[in-house]
């Protein structure tokens, strides 16, 4: 029964990992920028959910509706006003710029919210369901379902909407997209805004499960890195596959060789993948 429990836990956690990574993967794939603020966006989203629940007692699954537009506007403006100025500069410059922005955002969160760990506790608690011997808390199930819904929503946006097709076109071939009349600058800003909105929503869902503190942002960022490399860049299905694989490896690793080595294992896996299969599980070689 332990195996079944590990498997179910991995499935639940894997969808959340995918949700964390998907905005990061979108920005990386489309803008070719490694967005180091992503972790802090997630934490900020978690704080938003916490604040909404504490003051107005709005449960987190409704807070998603508030978080998504707020973070979209924030991300859109950040890209338009700051990142856009250096978007064509070498990797080092954009990476260091987002690192600087992350320092600012993270430090202001520590300053205003303090570094204490907080936990959003639902009142009354909603308990857990058990099937045979496998137990899953209901709040986790809700978070997982919402994460899957968000992932599906992004998939639909990229597939069906005009702006989504434009984003994919810019990712496939920037120059050809310009020739077809796509306004690349605004697509960049929209993609970054979408990435930020997804990070904010992921943060809202994280608030249901994990404790909240500005110090956890690097953990989320690390997960996003690993998932992106494992699954492949810029595709929704890749992020999902990467998230599930990472959760499985961590789950099985913790159950067999102990939880303290789970992180080492995931980073070792990352390096192996980077060297052996840099395009990821589902990524296609050829276009970056």
């Amino acid at each position, binding site marked *: 029964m332990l195996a079944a429990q590990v498997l179910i836990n991995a499935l639940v956690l894997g969808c959340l990992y995918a949700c964390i990574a998907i905005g990061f993967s979108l920005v990386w794939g489309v803008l*070719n920028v490694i967005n180091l603020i992503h972790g802090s966006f997630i934490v900020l989203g978690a704080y938003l959910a916490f604040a909404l629940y504490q003051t107005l007692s709005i449960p987190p699954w409704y807070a998603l509706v508030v978080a998504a537009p707020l973070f979209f506007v924030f991300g859109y403006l950040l890209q338009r006003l700051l990142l856009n100025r250096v978007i064509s500069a070498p990797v080092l*410059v954009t990476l260091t*710029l987002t*690192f600087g922005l992350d320092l600012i955002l993270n430090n*202001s969160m520590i300053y205003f919210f303090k570094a204490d760990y907080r936990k959003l506790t639902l009142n009354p608690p909603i308990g857990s369901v058990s099937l045979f011997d496998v137990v899953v808390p209901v709040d986790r199930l809700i978070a997982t379902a919402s994460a899957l819904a968000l992932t599906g929503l992004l998939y639909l946006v990229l597939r069906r909407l005009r702006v989504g097709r434009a984003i994919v076109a810019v990712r496939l071939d920037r120059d050809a997209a310009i020739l077809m009349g796509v306004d690349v600058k605004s697509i960049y800003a929209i993609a970054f805004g979408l990435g930020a909105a997804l990070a904010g929503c992921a943060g809202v869902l994280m608030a249901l499960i994990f404790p909240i503190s500005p110090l956890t942002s690097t953990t989320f960022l690390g997960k996003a890195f690993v998932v992106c490399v494992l699954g492949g860049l810029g595709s929704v299905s890749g992020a999902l596959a990467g998230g599930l694989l990472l959760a499985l490896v961590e789950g099985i690793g913790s159950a067999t060789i102990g939880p303290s080595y789970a992180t080492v294992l995931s980073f070792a896996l990352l390096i192996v993948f980077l060297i052996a299969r840099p395009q990821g599980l589902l990524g296609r070689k050829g276009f970056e």
Partner: protein
Amino acid sequence: MKRTDWALLLLIGVIAALPLFGGAYALRLGTIACMYAILALSWNVVGGWAGYPSFATAAFFGFGAYATGVLLGKGLPLALAIAATLVASLLLAGLFGAMLLRLRGHYFAIASLSLVEALRELVNNATDLTGGGMGLNIPLAAGSGILADAAFFFYAMWGLLLATALTMIAVSMSKLGFGLACIRQNETAADMVGLNSTLYKSIAFGLSACFVSAAGGLYAAWVHYIDPSDVFDILYSVKPIVMALMGGLGSGLGVVCGALLYLALEEVVWRNYIQIHSGVLGVLIVMLLLFLPHGLISLRWRMFWRKAAHV
């Protein structure tokens, strides 16, 4: 040797005179200045000359600190421990470099970043050898006073800086330096004309790691207590990059000036705004990248009274 190389050596010579002017505080600041300069000069080999965005500095700093710490705990003398650390990290980094430097751009940046995480977690878990999260106490050198101790570590770090600078100058004049510049400009073309780019990059990675490790070792011996979150701090990877960007990528004199300026700013910010120091650092980084992307070395007196015709 170029004129800027002489200027670099002169600057390092001036730093050596620091103990004449102040007490323990000046010595502490001077030691950190030398350490930062070593980190920046070392990063410059891979980041500035070969053009690879490496975030592995913290990995080798931490590795050096722990290697020296453990060796000192086993009773080895300091000089021997540092030398062993230097050689070990040269080999280790060469090995890692041969694997990781096949990746380019973002992928290399992430791989080098995850090297820090992986090493930190390993050290965290190898409790028997390193003390794990409890940290590692390093035995005090017997019988010397506080001021003598501070002066000793200042001159040790200074000597290491001098060695680093001389090595870097030698590299920049050699075929290796030329090859690295070729790799930065166009790696595929460099491969085509018969340059063994993997070998060159691995040597560069090793060189950029060994002095950082030695500096980490001296740091460990100097502060007597290290723990994984301190010496594997990702900021040790980022600070050299900021220093190099401040001073001017690729120029030895530039990055050392950047390191000194960075230290001065850091000291002022730490002293006055302890609660928001990392935020201020972030603002500094953003301003720097937006307004002075080529560093201090690109500043000309002309720029202050006449606008450039085209940028």
